[in-house]
C-alpha cells in the first residue's frame, strides 16, 4: 500500500467531511477559473474588434454606446448624422485619413443586425468572401459566417428586414427584399454576426417605408435615382454587371468605387446605371449612424480631431481604446468583488481542510501511534497528512475546473442567444496552471499544522491513554 493510497483511504473513509472540503474548494477554484475564462474571452473579442480603428464619429450621446453599437454591435445604435457633416473625412484624398467606413445601423433580420456600409468594411476586419461575391448593388447582402449559418442563408436567399434589433413582425419593412449575394469566411470578430449591405439599401428601405430620417429636400437627380431603384426592387431584378454612373463629385471617390470606374469604359451608359451605386459622397443629405476612421499615423491634426468634432460640431467623436478601457474599469469593480469573493471562498475551504484534518487527527491519534509502533517514521506520518491535504486540493481543483468550464459552455449558449457572441468552455488558459499551484499551496498550508502534530505524536503517552 503506497502512502498515496493510504491517504486516499483515510479521506474516503469519511466521505461527508471530504465532500464539504471538496465542495468549498471546488467553488473557490471554479469561481476564479470562471473569471479568468470570461475575462480572457471578452478581452479577446474586444481586441479583435478594435481592428485598428482610431476614431468613431456619431451622434451626440454616450461615447461608450457609440463604440459598443458601431464596433461591437452589442448596444442600441445612437442617432444619425448627416453625411454632409462628415464629408471631409470620407474624402479619400484626405491625407490624414487612411480609411473611413460609414455605417448605417438599426435594422435587423431575425435578431441579426443589418449594417449598411461600403466595401472597405471588409478590409477593416480582413474579412474574405467564402462563397458568392461582395455586395455591389442595391439590396444586395453579404452575410457573416455565423449569421448565414444560424439564419440558414445561402447565396440567392432573400429576406425582409425589420426595424429595430429585435424580432418583431409588426416592424417588418414590407416590400423590400434583401438578396444574399455572398457569404464571408469566419473571422472570429463581430463581423461574423452581421449582414452587410450598401448603405443605400438602408435608405431605400426606410424612405419608402416612411421610416427613418429621409432628408426633406432631395436633388431632383437623386430623387430620380431613388425612384428607379424602387422600380427595380419591385421588379425583383436586382441584377449584377451594371455599369456605374460615371459622375464624380469634385474628384472624390471612395476606394470601393475605383474598380467600378474602370468599368466605365467598357460598359455602355444605359439607363440601368443606377444599379451600380454611386459613392455615398453623392448623397450629402442622407444620414448614416456612425463613421469609423483609421488615421494615417498620429499627428497633431489627428490628435486634435476628436476635440474639434466634440466642441465645434453637433456630432461626437470617441476613441475606441479609451472607451474600452473605461468599460473594463467599470466591469472591473464587479470583477474585483467576485475575485475577492473567490479568494475568500478559497481561504474558507483551506480552513475547512485544516479543521477536518485537525479534528480527524484527534480521532486518529491512537492510529498514528500504532503506525509508529509498527515501524512508521515520524516523517512518514507527516507526509501522509500532507498528502491528504494535497489530495483534497487536487480533487477540489479538478472539480472546480469542471464546474467553470462546464458553466462556461452552458453560458456560451445563453450569450450566443443574447449577444450573438460565441464563447467557449473548451479552452484552457496558462493562468489555470498557476491556479493549480495556488490550490496545492492552499492544501499544503492547511495540512502543515496537522501534519506537524501527527509527526510529533508521543507514542507511549497516546498508547497509555488507551
Amino acid at each position: 500500500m503506497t502512502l498515496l493510497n493510504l491517504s486516499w483511504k483515510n479521506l474516503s473513509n469519511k466521505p461527508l467531511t471530504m465532500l464539504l472540503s471538496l465542495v468549498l474548494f471546488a467553488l473557490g477554484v471554479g469561481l476564479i477559473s470562471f473569471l479568468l475564462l470570461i475575462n480572457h474571452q471578452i478581452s479577446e473579442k474586444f481586441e479583435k474588434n478594435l481592428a485598428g480603428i482610431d476614431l468613431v464619429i456619431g451622434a451626440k450621446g454616450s461615447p461608450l454606446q457609440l463604440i459598443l453599437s458601431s464596433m461591437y454591435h452589442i448596444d442600441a445604435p445612437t442617432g444619425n448624422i448627416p453625411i454632409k457633416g462628415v464629408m471631409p473625412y470620407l474624402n479619400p484624398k484626405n491625407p490624414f485619413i487612411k480609411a473611413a467606413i460609414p455605417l448605417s445601423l438599426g435594422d435587423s433580420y431575425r435578431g441579426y443586425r443589418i449594417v449598411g456600409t461600403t466595401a472597405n468594411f471588409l478590409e477593416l476586419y480582413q474579412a474574405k468572401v467564402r462563397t458568392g461575391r461582395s455586395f455591389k448593388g442595391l439590396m444586395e447582402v453579404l452575410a457573416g459566417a455565423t449569421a448565414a449559418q444560424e439564419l440558414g442563408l445561402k447565396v440567392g436567399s432573400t429576406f425582409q428586414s425589420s426595424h429595430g434589433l429585435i424580432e418583431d413582425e409588426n416592424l417588418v419593412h414590407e416590400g423590400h427584399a434583401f438578396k444574399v449575394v455572398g457569404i464571408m469566411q469566419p473571422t472570429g470578430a463581430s463581423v461574423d454576426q452581421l449582414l452587410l449591405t450598401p448603405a443605400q439599401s438602408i435608405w431605400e428601405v426606410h424612405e419608402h417605408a416612411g421610416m427613418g430620417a429621409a432628408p426633406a429636400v432631395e436633388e431632383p437627380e437623386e430623387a430620380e435615382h431613388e425612384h428607379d431603384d424602387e422600380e427595380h426592387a419591385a421588379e425583383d431584378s436586382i441584377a449584377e454587371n451594371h455599369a456605374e454612373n460615371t459622375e464624380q463629385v469634385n474628384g472624390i471617390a471612395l476606394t470601393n468605387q475605383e474598380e467600378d470606374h474602370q468599368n466605365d469604359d467598357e460598359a455602355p451608359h444605359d439607363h440601368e446605371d443606377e444599379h451600380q451605386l454611386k459613392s455615398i459622397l453623392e448623397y450629402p443629405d442622407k444620414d448614416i449612424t456612425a463613421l469609423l476612421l483609421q488615421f494615417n499615423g498620429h499627428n497633431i491634426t489627428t490628435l486634435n480631431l476628436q476635440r474639434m468634432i466634440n466642441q465645434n460640431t453637433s456630432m461626437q467623436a470617441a476613441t475606441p481604446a479609451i472607451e474600452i478601457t473605461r468599460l473594463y474599469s467599470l466591469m472591473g469593480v464587479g470583477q474585483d468583488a467576485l475575485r475577492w469573493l473567490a479568494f475568500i471562498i478559497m481561504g474558507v475551504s483551506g480552513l475547512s481542510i485544516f479543521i477536518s484534518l485537525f479534528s480527524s487527527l484527534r480521532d486518529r491519534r491512537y492510529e498514528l501511534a500504532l503506525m509508529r509502533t509498527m515501524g512508521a517514521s515520524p516523517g512518514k506520518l507527516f507526509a501522509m497528512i500532507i498528502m491528504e491535504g494535497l489530495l483534497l486540493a487536487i480533487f477540489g481543483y479538478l472539480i472546480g475546473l469542471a464546474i467553470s468550464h462546464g458553466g462556461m459552455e452552458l453560458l456560451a449558449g445563453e450569450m450566443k442567444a443574447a449577444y450573438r457572441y460565441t464563447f467557449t468552455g473548451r479552452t484552457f488558459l496558462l493562468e489555470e496552471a498557476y491556479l493549480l499551484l495556488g490550490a496545492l499551496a492552499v492544501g499544503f498550508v492547511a495540512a502543515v499544522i496537522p501534519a506537524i502534530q501527527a509527526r510529533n505524536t508521543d507514542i507511549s503517552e497516546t498508547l497509555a491513554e488507551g
Partner: protein
Amino acid sequence: MNFPDFSLQKGEHWLLLGQSGSGKTTLLHLLGGLLSPSSGSIQIENTELGQLRASALDQFRGKNIGIVFQKSHFVRALSIGENLALAQQLAGLKPNRERIIELLERLNIGDKFRLKPDRLSIGEQQRAAIARALVNQAPIILADEPTSALDDHNATEVINLLEEQASALGSTLLVVTHDKRLKDRFPNQIAL
C-alpha cells in the same frame, strides 16, 4: 520509576504481574522502544535499544517486536487484511497476502479479511490484533493487558492463541497483566 534487572531467554513465555499504576505499561513501552529509559539499558539479542537512532529504532521495532494492546486499535480506514499488509510494509517487508490469509485462518477469522475493523466483535478484533503482532514473525511478542477487556471465554481463547502462535514461531512472549485469570498459566513470572 525503577524496575529490577531481568532477562528472558529466547523462546520463553513470561508473565509480568503488577497492580494498576505499578508501571507495567511503562516497562512494556521501554521494552518495545516506545520510550527511552533515563538510566539503565535494554538489550535485545545484541542490540542496545538506546543506541539506535530514531529512524533505525522505528525500523527495528517494526521488524522485531510485535505488540498486542489492551484495546485493539486499527487504522480504521483500512480492512483487516490491509491493516496486516500495512504492518508488513511499515516494517520494511513486502506485503505477503498468502501469509496474511493463512494467519487469519489459523486464528479463525479468515472470513474477516475484507472487513473494516469496526465490523468485527471485540473478541475478533483482539484476534486480529494478535495476527498483526505475529504477521512479521517477530522474535519478540509483547502483550499489554491482552485479556482485561474480554470475558472468561474470550480471555482463555486469546491467551491460548498467543501461546500457541508464539510457540509455533519460536518467539519470546511477554504478557503484562494484572488479570488474575492468567496467573496460573505461566510458570515464568516477574512481579512489580
